[in-house]
């Protein structure tokens, strides 16, 4: 009575076929990147050394290291974080703890989506118009970092909001019942329970900020500078822009050099993302509620 019919067999065959097809598509999506990573390591790995990371470029950027670019990227990311993390976390707190479910909140959410979707070069134009010209910061770390901060704000907001919303409602209610104000509840109960989740978002933002190139091109990053920046009103070199410069703007660069720069940049980004992902999984496993 329950014999496997021909139709069943055909269907099962079809299912196997589709499963294999989709698996192949997934692998094909991932394969090029593994090939690319392999090529970068193969061609650029030989140039990576402590010297490469910690010396200045020499001979018109065709030799030497990438220290000023690395140093500048650290500057840009640090200043951008100082601006975007407080604003982003405040926005996440508002959206998770205060915002009513109405049209206004929906507009805020739409603005966040759009902020993430505006092309990076338009952010750059905004940075030029607002920070470099209107606020008279000139092309400086400050102008570039502010541009980066606004561009990557959605990353912090979305990650922080998610981790705040993951704190159970009962925690807040228990705290309110003890007579705590709304802010005391957030400060003493909600934030401590969400801070590690917020941190994963911040790491993601660091990674995003490190890789961005277009927004800093005209706002504060320079192709080449013989000195390191001394403060936020100086220009700086940056690793992402340095890759663009050595691969397109400078003649006579030995082949390994841009591969080396690309390798350092991609390694920084992937390591930070991996840390963020690992941390998130660890937290998910640890969570008791």
């Amino acid at each position, binding site marked *: 009575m329950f014999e496997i019919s021909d139709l069943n067999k055909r269907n099962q065959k079809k299912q196997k076929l589709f499963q294999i097809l989709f698996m192949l598509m997934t692998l094909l999506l991932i394969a090029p990147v593994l090939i690319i990573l392999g090529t970068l390591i193969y061609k650029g790995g030989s140039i990576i050394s402590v010297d490469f990371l910690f010396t200045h470029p020499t001979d018109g950027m065709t030799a030497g290291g990438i220290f000023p670019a690395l140093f500048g990227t650290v500057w840009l990311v640090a200043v951008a974080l100082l601006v975007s993390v407080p604003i982003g976390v405040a926005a996440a707190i508002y959206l998770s703890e205060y915002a009513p479910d109405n049209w206004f909140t929906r507009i805020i959410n739409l603005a966040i989506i759009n*902020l993430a*979707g505006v092309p990076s070069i338009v952010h750059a134009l905004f940075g030029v118009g607002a920070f470099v010209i209107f606020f008279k910061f000139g092309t400086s770390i400050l102008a570039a970092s502010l541009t980066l901060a606004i561009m990557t704000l959605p990353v912090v907001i979305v990650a922080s909001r998610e981790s705040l919303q993951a704190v159970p409602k009962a925690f807040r209610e228990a705290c309110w019942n003890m007579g705590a104000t709304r802010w005391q509840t957030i400060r003493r109960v909600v934030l401590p329970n969400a801070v590690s989740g917020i941190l994963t978002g911040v790491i993601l933002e660091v990674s995003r900020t490190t890789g961005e190139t277009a927004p800093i091109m005209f706002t504060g990053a320079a192709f080449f500078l013989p000195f390191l920046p001394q403060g936020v009103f100086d220009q700086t070199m940056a690793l992402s822009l340095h890759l663009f410069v050595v691969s397109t703007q400078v003649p006579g660069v030995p082949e390994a050099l841009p591969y080396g720069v690309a390798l350092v940049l991609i390694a920084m980004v992937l390591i930070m993302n991996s840390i963020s992902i690992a941390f998130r999984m660890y937290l998910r496993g640890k969570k008791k509620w």
Partner: protein
Amino acid sequence: MQQNSNMAGNAFDRRTLDWYIDKGMQLVVFIGGISAIIFIIGIFVFITLEGMDFVFGRFDPVEFFTTEYWFPSDEDDPEFGILALIAGTASVTGLAMLVAIPFALGAAIYIGEFATGKKREYLKVLVELLAAIPSVVWGFIGLSIMNPLIIEVFDVPVGLNVLNAGVILGLMAAPIMASIAEDALKAVPESYREAAEALGATRWQVIFKVVLPAAKNGLLGAVLLGVGRGFGETMAVLMATGHSVNIPGSIFDSVRALTATIAAELGETAVGSDHYGALFTIGIFLFLITFVINLSADLIVRGVRKG
């Protein structure tokens, strides 16, 4: 007695202070909350401010949008036609979508519906890492790996063209589209699948006849966001398209994208010149296009949640 009233006074004082802190912080986080709106409006205002002189001066919408001659720095007779740039952006984005959509949807279906347990976790992590690779690195890959590859395989003189940038952009957009599409598949209630399986449907029947139709809007949203990403991508298309103003006749022609034009030329223009204003006008155009794309993606995805 004296002490008593003091204590009462202190308790009263502390309560008001907490109350003020509470209200103060509410205001602070509210300002944080509306910051995204302020910034979006700010972006529009400031790029419009810089582009205004051009828009109300030299700008001629017919010339701007329908001619293909982009010679903004010609001293005698500058021409501001962005049709070729639009064609460049559209051709690269179009090819990118041809590359990305099947792979992104296939990967989303495999990860969401077939893969289980650890395998699924690993694939999701890999896709997330793919999405994190910076665009300047993709541009470099187009320049140094894809370029010689295309020249050799297709026997063409230049490897920086629509094909190169389209494939690069497709690889960039696919992971993002895949993870959004996977979310859309996940949002289809488990009971739909169970009901179909109870009726005797096989796995692929469930996927094609039940899950995909139910997730249709979310998948469309994923595609739209991919298109938006393609339109706005800057560094990769700057480095991989060949950067020559051209309406492409084939995928082996070099083109130039709207975003790349701004990136390449803004540094050379004098603040306030027509050329400078024209670049900001392109910026306004890009802002409006991506705004509409994101808005419709959001409306489409929300639509499915309500239904």
